[in-house]
């Protein structure tokens, strides 16, 4: 890393990165004030694909809102649906069969791996390496095939229902998942040899984009961004929900706070997710996946309810304010990327543009989720 450079505010020019730029992965715009190749100041402009999901919730019944959740973060749609069904089940006191909870955990973890694989590929592509993207997509394709076989779609699953699931899993899925776990472990080793230990990648990521724990607190960063800064925070552990207390898994935490720490956190999370899936398949109980009596119309008792789950990118929270009607009075979606991206403005000051874009990649952005 170069010495800190004193930037001259009067010799700057403004560089508009985005809304259409290869590194922004969607329509995100960063207005950078540049001094040569160094960033003097940056202002992130979001909202280009804002769809007002929160207003939609007010006009729909609880069940009708289910498909919307997959459209927030299209890469780990399962976790978002999970958060929503958990929130409603908690408030309406709906019992969920154990088998359904296990299948939920398994599919959510598979989706987390697929989401991290896209991040891995796209991140290395941000850094200029192309082939890892293709290898990662090859592995992700296996997950999508498995999930497609049980849910019927490849990206916007809409698989969870209040109190249960859309339908049960079959033996093919279990067998296929076990095969996938073996394959994925092999691929992860390959990724480590090809990418993690690569000297070019290491020099590009080490000491780049430091995010301190204090900054995380001020901005409310969660997920791998916080865990890369030495904060041991994972909603699955800190605030156990669903059947996660019954699994034995580690939360990878690195204290460096640089892009490489975030990279390592996500790579290890994939391994931990594999462990969870394996245990889930071993422990999978028999029984129905839907409650005896499926609730027809759902009405929550008046009051407000908060539920958080660990999505692919951090803590995803749902606040439902109910007035006893069959649609929510107010529904707030707390998306993790929104908070994670917010610290970019402060953190990227004084960086080279190439480093800043690598840093942006390490935050793992999904723009539709940020804009909602």
């Amino acid at each position, binding site marked *: 890393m170069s010495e800190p450079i004193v930037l001259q505010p009067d010799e700057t020019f403004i560089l508009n990165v985005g809304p259409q730029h290869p590194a922004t992965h969607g329509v995100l715009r960063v207005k950078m004030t540049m001094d040569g190749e160094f960033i003097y100041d940056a202002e992130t402009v979001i909202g280009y694909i804002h769809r007002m999901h929160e207003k939609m919730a007010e006009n*729909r019944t609880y*069940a*009708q*809102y*289910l*498909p*919307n959740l997959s*459209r927030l973060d299209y890469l780990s749609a399962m976790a978002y649906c999970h958060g929503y069904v958990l929130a409603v089940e908690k408030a309406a006191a709906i019992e969920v069969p154990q088998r359904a909870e296990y299948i939920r955990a398994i599919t959510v973890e598979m989706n987390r791996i697929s989401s991290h694989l896209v991040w891995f590929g796209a991140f290395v592509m941000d850094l200029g390496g192309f*082939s890892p993207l293709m*290898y990662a997509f*090859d592995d992700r394709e296996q997950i999508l095939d498995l999930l*497609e*076989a*049980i*849910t*019927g*779609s490849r990206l*916007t699953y*809409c698989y969870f*229902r209040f109190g249960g699931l*859309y*339908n049960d899993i079959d033996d093919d899925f279990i067998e296929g998942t076990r095969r996938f776990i073996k394959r994925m472990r092999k691929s992860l080793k*390959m990724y480590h*040899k*090809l*990418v993690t*230990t*690569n*000297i*070019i990648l290491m020099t590009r990521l080490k000491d780049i984009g430091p995010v301190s724990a204090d900054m995380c607190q001020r901005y409310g960063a969660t997920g791998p961004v916080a865990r890369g800064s030495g904060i041991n925070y994972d909603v699955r552990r800190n605030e156990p929900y669903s059947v996660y207390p019954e699994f034995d898994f580690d939360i990878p935490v690195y204290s460096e706070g640089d892009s490489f720490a975030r990279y390592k956190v996500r790579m290890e999370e994939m391994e931990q997710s594999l462990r969870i899936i394996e245990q889930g398949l071993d422990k999978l109980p028999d029984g129905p996946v839907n409650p005896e009596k499926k609730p027809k119309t759902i009405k929550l008792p008046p009051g407000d309810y908060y539920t958080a789950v660990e999505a692919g990118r951090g803590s995803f929270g749902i606040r439902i304010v109910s007035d006893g009607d069959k649609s929510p009075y107010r529904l707030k979606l707390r998306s993790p990327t929104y908070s994670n991206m917010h610290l970019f403005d402060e953190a990227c000051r004084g960086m080279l543009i190439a480093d800043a874009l690598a840093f942006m990649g390490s935050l793992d952005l999904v723009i539709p989720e940020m804009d909602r």
Partner: protein
Amino acid sequence: MFRYFTDIFSGLWSLFVGMGITFHEFFKPKITVHYPHESIKMTARYRGHIELIPGEDGQPLCVVCGMCEKACPSNCISISGEKPEGSKKKVLTSYKLNFTTCSLCGSCVDSCNFGAVRFSREYNLASTRKEDYHYDLLKRLEESIQ
């Protein structure tokens, strides 16, 4: 000084390891499917747009209860039926699906208590006009039976 050379050497070695992996991948079989020339098997639970299920007499099983219409989050289903003289059941006269706003969530299939709708297996839909996606599912059913 020693560190300087070990750094260079280990860096160089990591590069050669990476090249070894890509060289290995070079000779592995291809994994892509050449879409128009070949296609993959469709899964049993594939979600296409919905279609009506015919009964044994070839008529739709639908009893025009309107549950799917109500369940749809984006109001893309509109159905109507009438009660013919001397019959107890309502008979479906039209089942319109506006596929432009459908998000394939399956709420309609879930909500149907009579098992009258299911997902079709249509996947290669392409058109330049919006109107082509306003389906008349009843007509589609009649055509498929003929």
